[in-house]
């Protein structure tokens, strides 16, 4: 196998990895906010349900969650496994898992906003919804960017776990090429790609952080 076709295979895989990455963020970031609200609910039954959810998502391996998401419907409900469901299962498992981590980050961000902000908004007559979206949320965004950046960088690398469901992302590709041609090169190349991918992600997040640097 020549290098050109090897790289083109890897790049195809990279595309799938990127797809997993963005779809996960698309679902996990907002879902995390809802879970954070649930976790902070004044209703202690609701709060406990979300507490347990977060604890399970953080306390068990993501790889296991992937397998449960894919095989669960079959073992639990005897729904036949469609191969097309593989990719969806990956997105579902990643989103549910990452949303749990995001929820805890949001929660600490929200709880870190001084009570005075709510009070100032309250006496000015802002409704609770206005207070959250106009006053609290923008400040939370600024506070959570560093911890969210950590999660996002981990996510880039975690996309490789999709290989456990044989989704053709970059790591799966690299492994296949490597074993078919007994060569280390695809691994090295994949490593470089992951690194560059993460470098760009970190760069983007840093830019975002800088843009919110206009206030303290």
């Amino acid at each position, binding site marked *: 196998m020549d290098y050109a076709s090897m790289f083109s295979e890897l790049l195809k895989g990279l595309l799938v990895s990127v797809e997993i990455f963005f779809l996960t963020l698309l679902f996990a970031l907002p879902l995390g906010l809802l879970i954070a609200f649930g976790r902070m609910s004044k209703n202690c039954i609701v709060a406990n349900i979300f507490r347990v959810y977060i604890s399970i998502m953080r306390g068990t391996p993501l790889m296991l969650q992937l397998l449960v998401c894919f095989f669960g419907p079959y073992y639990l409900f005897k729904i036949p496994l469609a191969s097309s469901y593989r990719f969806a299962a990956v997105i579902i498992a990643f989103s549910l898992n990452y949303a749990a981590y995001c929820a805890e980050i949001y929660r600490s961000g929200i709880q870190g906003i001084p009570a005075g902000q709510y009070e100032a908004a309250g*006496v000015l007559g802002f409704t609770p919804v206005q207070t959250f979206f*106009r006053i609290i949320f923008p400040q939370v965004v600024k506070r959570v960017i560093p911890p969210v950046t950590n999660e996002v960088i981990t996510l880039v690398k975690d996309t490789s776990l999709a290989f456990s469901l044989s989704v053709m992302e970059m790591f799966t590709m690299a492994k296949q090429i490597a074993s078919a041609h007994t060569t280390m090169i695809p691994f090295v190349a994949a490593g470089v790609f992951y690194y560059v991918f993460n470098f760009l992600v970190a760069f983007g997040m840093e830019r975002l952080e800088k843009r919110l640097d206009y206030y303290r």
Partner: protein
Amino acid sequence: MSKELLKICNFSKTFGDLAVLKDISFSVKEGEVVSIIGPSGSGKTTLLRCAALLESVEKGDLSYGDLQVCVQGVYAGKNVLKDAKNRFGFVFQNFHLFPHYNVMENVTKAPLLVQKRDKKEVEEMARQLLKKMGLSGKENSYPCELSGGQQQRVAIARALAMKPGILFFDEPTSALDPELTQEILKVIRDLAEEKMTMVIVTHEINFARNVSDRIIFMADGYIVEEGEASSLVDHPQNERTKEFLAFISQKG
């Protein structure tokens, strides 16, 4: 006879086992400046916060003009509370400006979003207010770029922008250096001259004596003494008041 803007009757408030307000009654007429003084922990902040609906009382009545906000510890519905919030402004000890908004936005957001007033009118008024506060040219600064005194003046402008009938101050200078304190006291004095109705919790006894019409002395959750400002400071009747004023003047 000028009309009564705020009326509080028999307020009682507890935090757990601690009774913080005990049967507090007083009222404020239009154009009046009332100062509340008293030792630390006597319930001054709590009283102001209850009046501003930041805390709720267990017993008592609260009304803003014709608006009955609370009757015997039972609060009116959402709409009445919303109306009531348009009738007063609150200036906090620690300013509590919105850090992600610049000065102009801090002042204009609530009139625009809550009172739904015209953008041009609000911005024009905000500029006037900031000018009055000596903050012209700071419209686009962020709170973190301002001194404490400037921040507090923005906070006062923010409260005034809502055109409140009555303005509450909770120790507006306690977080400030002596120099900056004078800055804020001057602003409040100017407002008093314009007949702005104000209730001020303060430890600045001389200021209270000079600027207010009436002073209320609180201790242990009670109003111990209440009277015309200079006579209360110069000729206190109650032993607790005498003790407190002596202690304050001794401290400097």
